[in-house]
């Protein structure tokens, strides 16, 4: 009986995973631009350092590497390169990725993170 329940639970999880894949949409850079304008602009700009470092070339950049920005020591020594996976982890919970960082801002929605990252990737290519 217990084995049957485990098999059914596994099948259920598998179905949920496949269903979410079916309904997952591609990241939307245009929506990401709008999100950036409402969520990030309080502290960041694409081309100037403000409260946070500039973001225009952040995709593909090594963390803590903008010369004229005052980073936390933790981020400077992190050796992270900002790509889809690292940016997703950073936006989900920066303190989990780099303990001692100073951003602390979290984006809880995976779809929002994906759209923001798509926008930042496009901005770096422009």
């Amino acid at each position: 009986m217990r084995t049957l329940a485990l098999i059914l639970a596994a099948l259920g999880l598998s179905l949920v995973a496949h269903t979410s894949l079916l309904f997952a949409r591609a990241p939307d850079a245009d929506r990401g631009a709008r999100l950036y304008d409402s969520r990030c602009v309080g502290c960041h700009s694409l081309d100037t350092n403000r409260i946070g470092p500039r973001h225009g070339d952040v995709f593909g950049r090594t963390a803590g590497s903008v010369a004229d920005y005052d980073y936390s020591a933790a981020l400077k020594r992190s050796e992270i390169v900002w790509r889809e996976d690292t940016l997703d982890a950073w936006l989900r919970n920066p303190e989990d990725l780099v303990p001692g960082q100073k951003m602390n801002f979290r984006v809880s929605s995976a779809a929002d993170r994906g759209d923001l990252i798509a926008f930042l990737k496009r901005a770096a290519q422009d």
Partner: protein
Amino acid sequence: MSSTNNDGAAPKLPARRAFLQTTGQAALSATAIAMLVGSESLIRSARAADASKDVSILNVALALEHEAIAAYQLGAESGLLQKPVLDVAVQFQSHHKGHRDALVDTIGKLGGSPVSSKGMGQYAAELKANTLGSQKDVLMLAARLEKGAANAYLGVIPAFQDPALAQVSARLAADETMHWTVLAQALGQPLPANPLSFGA
């Protein structure tokens, strides 16, 4: 530690499972972990670590408030704002000065060092003040910064170790949202069509 209740019965599984689920979902602060361990010295150092994290968040908030004060100063000195609008801008700037003073005070009480304001020239360059050519330009810049600030304050709430400071962040967000609403109305921008348009 006993694995039984006072009546000698084993703990009910659902309650234990619920506890584990709760602690698994919400990260415990260093202080909470130290309290569970029960070491006084550990609790003291953990409290200092938690306060240090909160100070770090508050200092970013303070930097944001310094910039907001500067932005309204640039707008006020631009000569682009008509009298009634200028009065509102000065009032909003006074709110940001109040935020700044509260943050400086709190950071000091937590044993931190408040970040200083940058020079007006640096703020002008960072905010591209030389591109402002009309009252509408100034209001649009202010609206973008206020909306961004509201979302910034909402986005850091889960990171606070002290719930009282998280509440302060929510109150700051409410002020910024009030500013944004007035500015958006002055610009003729529509209100958000959907609920829960801030934060998330």
